C-alpha cells in the first residue's frame, strides 16, 4: 500500500514537472499514440506502410461497424421490425470475397517492395558485430577491431531496484540510457551482423525501423543508413531472462569526421584491453559520453 501511495505521489511529481517544465529536465513525450517515422529512408517507408494499412483497416471498420449499427437501429423488434426469411445471396458473397482479395493485393504490393529493400545488405561501407548477452550488448567494429560492452546506465540501474525509493521521473532517459553507446557515422550504409552469446535477444531501435533477433549460433544481418546525426534509443525485444527489461540500446550517430576521430581514440584506448574486451566489463576508456 505504501508503495502504491508512493506511485501516486510520483504521478503528482510528474504532473508538476509537466506543468512547470523544470529546467534541465528533458521533455518526455507523454501520451504517445503512434509509431515513430524514424530517421532513415527505410523507417519512413515502414511508417508509411503502417499508416496505409491502418487507414484501410479504419475505413473497412467504419463501413462494417456502420452497417452493424444501422442494422441494430433499424431492424430491432421494439421498432416493429419483422424478420425476413432469406438466408443467402450468392452474388453478394462473391463480391465480398473478391473485394478483400483486391484490397489485400494492394497492401501486399508495397509491403513486398519495402521488404526486398530491407533485405539488401550489399554494399555496406562498414560492418558492426552486435552480440546479445544476459543482460548487456557487445559491439565490435569488424574493420577496426574496436569492441566494447554496453550496459544499463548506473542511475537507471540504481533506481530500478525493487523498493529503491528513487523516482524514475527524476532519472534522465530512465531505462533507456547506457554507459557506452554504440557510435556510428552519419550518411554511411552500416551493416549489422547480429548474434548472441547465451540466450535469444532482439536488437531494436525504433528510429531505425526494424528489430532483429540475436540468436546464439546464428548470425543475422540488417543494415541502416542514418542521414541526421543524433542519439536514438531502443531496447531488447525478446524475453531473455530476469533483466530483459534492463538492457537498453543507445545509438549515437556522429558526422563522418567526428566518427573517425572517435574511432581513432577508441583504437588507442582499446589496444591494451582488447583480449578480454568482448566478455569482461570494459575498462572505461573515456568519461561516459554525454547523453541527451
Amino acid at each position: 500500500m505504501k508503495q502504491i501511495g508512493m506511485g501516486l505521489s510520483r504521478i503528482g511529481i510528474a504532473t508538476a514537472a509537466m506543468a512547470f517544465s523544470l529546467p534541465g529536465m528533458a521533455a518526455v513525450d507523454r501520451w504517445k499514440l503512434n509509431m515513430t517515422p524514424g530517421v532513415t529512408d527505410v523507417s519512413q517507408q515502414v511508417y508509411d506502410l503502417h499508416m496505409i494499412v491502418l487507414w484501410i483497416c479504419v475505413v473497412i471498420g467504419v463501413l462494417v461497424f456502420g452497417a452493424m449499427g444501422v442494422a441494430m437501429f433499424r431492424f430491432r423488434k421494439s421498432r416493429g421490425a419483422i424478420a425476413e426469411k432469406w438466408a443467402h445471396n450468392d452474388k453478394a458473397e462473391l463480391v465480398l470475397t473478391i473485394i478483400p482479395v483486391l484490397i489485400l493485393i494492394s497492401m501486399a504490393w508495397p509491403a513486398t517492395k519495402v521488404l526486398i529493400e530491407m533485405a539488401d545488405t550489399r554494399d555496406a561501407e562498414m560492418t558492426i558485430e552486435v552480440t546479445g548477452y544476459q543482460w548487456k550488448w557487445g559491439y565490435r567494429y569488424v574493420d577496426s577491431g574496436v569492441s566494447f560492452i554496453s550496459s544499463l546506465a548506473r542511475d537507471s540501474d540504481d533506481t530500478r531496484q525493487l523498493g529503491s525509493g528513487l523516482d524514475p521521473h527524476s532519472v534522465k532517459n530512465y531505462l533507456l540510457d547506457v554507459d557506452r553507446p554504440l557510435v556510428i557515422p552519419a550518411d554511411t550504409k552500416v551493416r549489422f551482423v547480429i548474434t548472441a552469446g547465451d540466450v535469444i535477444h532482439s536488437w531494436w531501435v525504433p528510429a531505425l525501423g526494424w528489430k532483429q533477433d540475436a540468436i546464439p549460433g546464428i548470425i543475422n544481418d540488417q543494415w541502416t543508413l542514418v542521414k541526421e546525426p543524433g542519439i536514438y534509443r531502443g531496447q531488447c525485444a525478446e524475453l531473455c531472462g530476469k533483466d530483459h527489461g534492463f538492457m537498453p540500446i543507445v545509438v549515437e550517430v556522429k558526422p563522418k569526421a567526428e566518427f573517425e576521430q572517435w574511432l581513432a581514440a577508441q583504437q588507442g584506448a582499446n589496444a591494451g584491453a582488447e583480449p578480454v574486451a568482448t566478455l569482461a566489463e570494459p575498462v572505461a576508456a573515456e568519461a561516459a559520453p554525454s547523453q541527451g
Partner: protein
Amino acid sequence: MAHDASTHHDDHDHKPHGFVNRWLYATNHKDIGTMYLVFSLVMFFLGGLMAMVIRGELMFPGLQLIEPEFFNQMTTMHALVMIFGAVMPAFVGLANWMIPMMVGAPDMALPRMNNWSFWIMPFAFTTLLLPLALKVFFDIGGGGPAGGWTLYPPLSLQGGDSVAFTIFAVHMMGISSIMGAINIIATILNMRAPGMDLLKMPVFVWSWLITAFLLIAVMPVLAGAVTMLLTDKFFGTTFFSATGGGDPVMFQHIFWFFGHPEVYIMILPAFGIVSEIIPTFSRKPLFGYKAMVYAIASIAFLSFIVWAHHMFTVGMPLGGELFFMYATMLIAVPTGIKVFNWVFTMWKGSMTFETPMLFALAFVILFSIGGFSGLMLAIVPADFQYHDTYFVVAHFHYVLVTGAIFSVMAAVYYWLPKWTGRMYNERLGKIHFWASAISVNVLFFPQHFLGLAGMPRRIPDYNVAFADWNLVSSLGGFAFGLTQLLFAYIVWDCSRNKSLAKATDQVWEGAHGLEWTLSSPPPYHSFTTPPVITDSMLAHGNVAH
C-alpha cells in the same frame, strides 16, 4: 458440489448418487461438461489474479511490488493457465454439454474416455502450478517457469526443476485435449441421429468438428517439441543447442506449427457460438450457412501454413518471409466472409438485445478490431516494428479476451437457462456486459499505443514516457477483473436460486435447433431414442435451396 446430487429430486433419469459416483466416476456428458466449465472458471480467476499482479506492477514506472524474475513467472503462468486452463476447457465443456444435444445423440461416443479427459486436467494443473505455489507459499525452490509460455530455448532451459514440471503438465494437457478431440470427432461423425446430415449440423458443431481435427494434428507436435526440450535439459541431447549442432530456431518452427493452429483452436468454436446466437436474436436464419462452414474449413487449412509469421524477426530468407506474409494475409478473406455474414444475418431481421446477444455483438466488433491489428502484423516490414511490443499484446488480447472469452460468456448466458431450467438475472447480466465491454477496452486499447510508441512486451518496468497509458490500462484491468466476480455470482445464482423464473423449453423466442426441443433442464440422457428431424427445427432452416 457434494450436496448437488442429493438436492436434485428428479430420480427418474438414473442420476448416480453420491459425490464420488456422480462426479469422480462421471460418464455423463452434461456432468463432465459442467465440471469442465467450473474448472475453466476457477482457472480464469487464477489466471486473472496473475494478470492483476502484472498490471499492478506495471501501474507505475519503477518496481513497486515484485522482482523481475517473479514478474516473468507471472507472465508465463498467466498465459499457460489462461490458454490451457481457461479458454480450451471452456470450449470443451460447451462441446460436451451441447454437441450430443445438438446432433440428437444420447451422450458422447466414448463416455468413459470422456471421464479420463477431464480428470487428467486437475492433475495437470496441480503439476503445472506446484513449483510456483511452493515458492509463493513456502518459499521452497525457484518458483515456476519464467521463460514465457512459448518455452523458447535456450532461455527456457535455464529454468530449474520447474522445467520438468511444466513439460510433464503440458504432456498431460495434451493427452487430455487429444482424447477430448477424438471423442468429439467420433460423436459428430458417428453418433448423429438419422436425418442429421453433415450439412444440416449447427455451425457450432461444425466448428468443433474442425477444431478437433486441428487438435489431433498439432497436440502431438507440441508433445514432440517439449519432449525434445526435456531431453535437452535433463539427458544431454542438443536438439536446440547450437553448441551441440542443434538449432534454437528449429524449436520455434516446431512450436509455432503447433501454436498457430492452437490460436484457431481457441477461436473457431467462438465463431460457432456466435453463429448460433446472432440468428436466434435476429429471428432470421444464419446468412450463408455453407459459406460459413467452408470459411471455417479454409481458416483451419490456412492455419497450417502461416506459423512462421510469429517469427518474422528470426532472420528467415526473403522468400520465406514473403510466403508467410501472403499466406497470413489470405486468412483475412474467410474471416471477412464470416463477419460480413453475421452482419447480413442481422440485416432485415427482428433484433432484441438480451445478454447473450450483447456479448455476441461485442464479439463481432472487438474480434474484428483484433483481426485488423492481426492484418497489420502480417505486413512483414511493419511487423519488424510491431513484433514483441505491446501492440502484439493488445492484438492477441483482443482476439482472446474480447474474442474467445466473450464468446464463452455469450454461450453461457445463451445456454444457462437450458442447463439449469431457470432464467438468469437479466438485469445483472446486462450490467456485467456493459461493465466488461467498457473496462476491457480501457484495459487493452491503450496497449496499442504503448506498443507503437516503442514499449516491448514482457518487461516489468519502463521509461516514464509509457507511464500514462500503463496507468490507464492497469485501472481498466482492475475494473475488468472485479467485474468478472459478478459473472461468477450470476452463474451461481442461476444454478441455485429457486425463486428465479422457470425457463421454457425453447427459452429464446427465435431459438431453433434440437437442443431447444428438450426440456429445460434437459433429461439426464439426452436423446435415448433418436429424434425425428425436420428442417424447421434447425437454426439455418432449409439449406438446400
